[in-house]
């Protein structure tokens, strides 16, 4: 049975082979309009992008050969764009082959391939989800994936102040930059310091926001509390004011000598002034406080919504069993909230891992600490930003981006495997 089938797949094979030039296979299958359309598109694609491919791939390999004509960075970017467009092209090229092959198969089995209108219809039918995701995906490819690829590529070059246009070209140097990070003492120790603080920062700042948010929601949710709407409005305020504004305001308020925190609040409480901006550990505490202030309202709002949706009968049963308030909370409320809000809570952690604004705006990653090339409160992203924007250590910054990504992706995948979303997908 199987063997006889493979013997009369001649049409399929020939059609597939012919469509190495897109469209010809379709013509062979007597799908004239489709075939011509494929041919035209293919021709347009090749003529339209030929130059890009030509320059792009040449540039990608050499990163330029002559100054000041060539700019390595532009060549690299062009090369990557060429690569992406080629990938998209190959995808459709593959689909073209498949189409010819499949339709050839139909002929082999004695059916007629669909006419043009019908095939458009069935195309719309089968690829409806692709149609839906393609605008978003396309945007994603060029505004997110391309920049990330570019950054990754940069890590394997020696692009820095001394290898920059117009006077110099950058070159591929392989793993040289990574080697530097791990072999030069000061870089290695700085990297691990920064990574350590990034992890602590992410865990503590996010957990605090989440805990305070849930706690306040439960407090306001008490049945006999008056002015609920007023309290809720007040508690949302920190979220409603643009974050960068608040951070800069706090930066002023925490000034060591003249900030209101020291001169007014601590003074009124009879406490000594604290060096918020010049001692790293105090800056860290200030940062955690500010991030909790900024971050809890979001969790508060969502939790409030969730609380209102907990079915009463769950509690009724518990009251019958004589459960205390604490037991009700621990056995019913909390699991319900955590279950419902898991994705939102997780986004808090990813958000803080990359929370560049607060670190950079509050104290520019400072204060300075001995024996480190980063500031005392720099997290990975702010350090990368500073390396890029103020010290022009582009390759180094890119290499750190890769390390950061590996770290994040490892955690994400681990986390992903544990939750159900994987199986469900």
């Amino acid at each position, binding site marked *: 049975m199987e063997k006889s089938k493979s013997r009369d797949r001649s049409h*399929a*094979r020939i059609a*597939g082979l012919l469509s*190495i030039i897109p469209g010809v296979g379709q013509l062979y299958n007597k799908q004239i309009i489709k075939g011509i359309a494929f041919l035209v598109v293919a021709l347009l694609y090749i003529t339209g992008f*030929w130059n890009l*491919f*030509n*320059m*792009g*791939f*040449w*540039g990608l*390999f050499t990163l330029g050969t*002559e*100054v*000041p*004509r060539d*700019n390595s960075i*532009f060549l690299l970017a062009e090369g990557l764009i060429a690569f992406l467009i080629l990938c998209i092209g*190959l995808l459709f*090229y*593959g689909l073209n*082959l*498949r189409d010819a*092959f*499949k339709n050839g198969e139909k002929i082999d089995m004695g059916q007629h391939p669909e006419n043009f209108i019908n095939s458009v219809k069935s195309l719309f039918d089968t690829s409806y989800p692709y149609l839906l995701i393609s605008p978003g995906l396309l945007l994603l490819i060029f505004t997110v994936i391309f920049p990330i690829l570019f950054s990754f590529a940069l890590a394997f070059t*020696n692009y*820095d*102040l*001394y*290898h*920059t*246009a*117009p*006077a*110099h070209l950058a070159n591929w140097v392989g793993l040289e930059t990574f080697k*530097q990070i791990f072999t030069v003492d*000061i870089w290695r120790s700085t990297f691990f310091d920064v990574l350590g603080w990034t992890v602590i920062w992410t865990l503590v700042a996010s957990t605090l926001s989440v805990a305070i948010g849930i706690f306040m929601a439960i407090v306001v949710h008490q049945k006999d509390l008056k002015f609920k709407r007023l309290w809720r409005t007040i508690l949302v305020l920190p979220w409603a004011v643009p974050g960068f504004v608040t951070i800069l305001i706090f*930066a002023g308020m925490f*000034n*060591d*000598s*003249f900030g209101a925190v020291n001169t007014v609040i601590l003074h009124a409480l009879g406490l000594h002034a604290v*060096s918020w*901006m*010049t*001692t790293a550990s105090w800056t860290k505490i200030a940062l955690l406080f500010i991030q909790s202030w900024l971050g809890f309202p979001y969790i508060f709002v969502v939790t409030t919504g969730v609380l209102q949706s907990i079915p009463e009968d769950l509690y009724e049963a518990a009251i019958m069993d004589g459960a205390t308030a604490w037991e009700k909370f621990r056995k019913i409320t909390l699991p319900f909230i955590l279950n419902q809000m898991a994705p939102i809570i997780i986004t808090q952690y990813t958000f803080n891992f990359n929370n560049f604004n607060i670190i950079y705006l509050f*104290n*520019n990653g*400072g*204060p*300075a*600490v*001995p*024996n*480190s*090339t980063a500031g005392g409160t720099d997290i990975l992203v702010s350090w990368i930003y500073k390396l890029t924007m*103020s*010290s*022009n250590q582009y390759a180094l910054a890119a290499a750190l981006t890769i390390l950061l990504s590996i770290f994040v992706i490892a955690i994400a995948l681990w986390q992903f495997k544990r939750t159900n979303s994987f199986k469900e997908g």
Partner: protein
Amino acid sequence: MKKGWVKMFAASTVALLALTGCGPTSSGTSSSSKSNKSRGSLLVWEDKDKSSGIKDAVSKFEKENNVKIKVVEKTYADQLKQLRLDGPAGTGPDVITIPGDQIGTAVTEGLLKELKVSKKTQSIYTDSAMESQIVDGKVYGLPKAVESTVLFYNKKLVSEKDLPQTTEEWYKFSKEERTRGKYGLLALWDQIYYAQGVFSGYGGYIFGKKSSGAYNPKDIGLNNSGAIEAANYVSKFYKDGLFPKGILGDKGINVLDSLFTEGKAAAVISGPWNFDVYKKAGIDYGVVKLPKLANGKPMSSFIGVKSYNVSTYSKNVALAEKFVKFVSNANNSKKRYEVTNEVPAIKSLVNSAAVKSDVNAEAVAKQSQNAELTPNITEMDQVWTPINNALQVVDTGKATAKNALNSAVSQINSAIKANGKK
């Protein structure tokens, strides 16, 4: 079933890739950066709030050469940073205004066009100002103004005749002021730009010089015994509460300015950029050269040179060069001085009555005699951050001067070495 077309796909993909692979050998020739002949307009980046000073010169140049010039104001210290971004985009300027210590870096990167300036033209500028524009014997710009930090004092809080003359006297004076809740002298000595004045007096230096007079990046004197002594001396002002901690760090400069303009500090060490600012704030201030150090040596300072330079990205290099020479000539420099009060770098002007009678300019000129150029070699770029961090750490008492400076110098050395490999 499926495998048939997949195999075919793979095979033809390889074939296609092979085709594209052999294309790009002849490429590149079509793209060229030489699109000359777009004669007729220049984009000039002037320092912030200073474009009024070249207004006349610009319109004159426009008329004489039948061109259009657009002047855009940008903080001069940031212009090079922006040129890096805007230059390749084609939106960059033809002429920029940058600090002299950035010239070395800019030349290394190839951002600046060499100018052909005759010895005679060079000779009209003060020597040190001109020197800052020269890298390896080639001229890359013409000086526009020189600046140096000086001492500003509030006449209401300290009279000219009571003015302390040495840092030791200032130390005592500040102590007294503190008892009244005010500040005496304030300075941003957590930054090498300001602290260098003290360092230099005690024998510290950034780069030593070779016998040829060129800077020697292998000889860093920021952790020698003099430097350590200087750092300790400086940190005393912080530790004894004479300088508030609030003026440390990035935003310190704003706090320092405010303390002075609100009459809470009797004196500050700052630069000519504040002549106008302080006046507008309604402070009746005087300006003198920096005080003597405790060891009797004069306090040094960095001479900052502002210059006009031509970007290599300029599409109209010849015209841009012409404009730079025109706007920096003696006549236009004088005009500019009259409008902006920035101390000019022209010899004849420095000695002219106009400048001599201007107390502000006079103080800058006097201080300049004790001052030294900010090194303009590329390696200077690696110095700022580590040494400023070290100073801050010492001033906040987080590390001893010796440890912090040693660590800073080893950081600088390794950064220079890492970058100098190729």
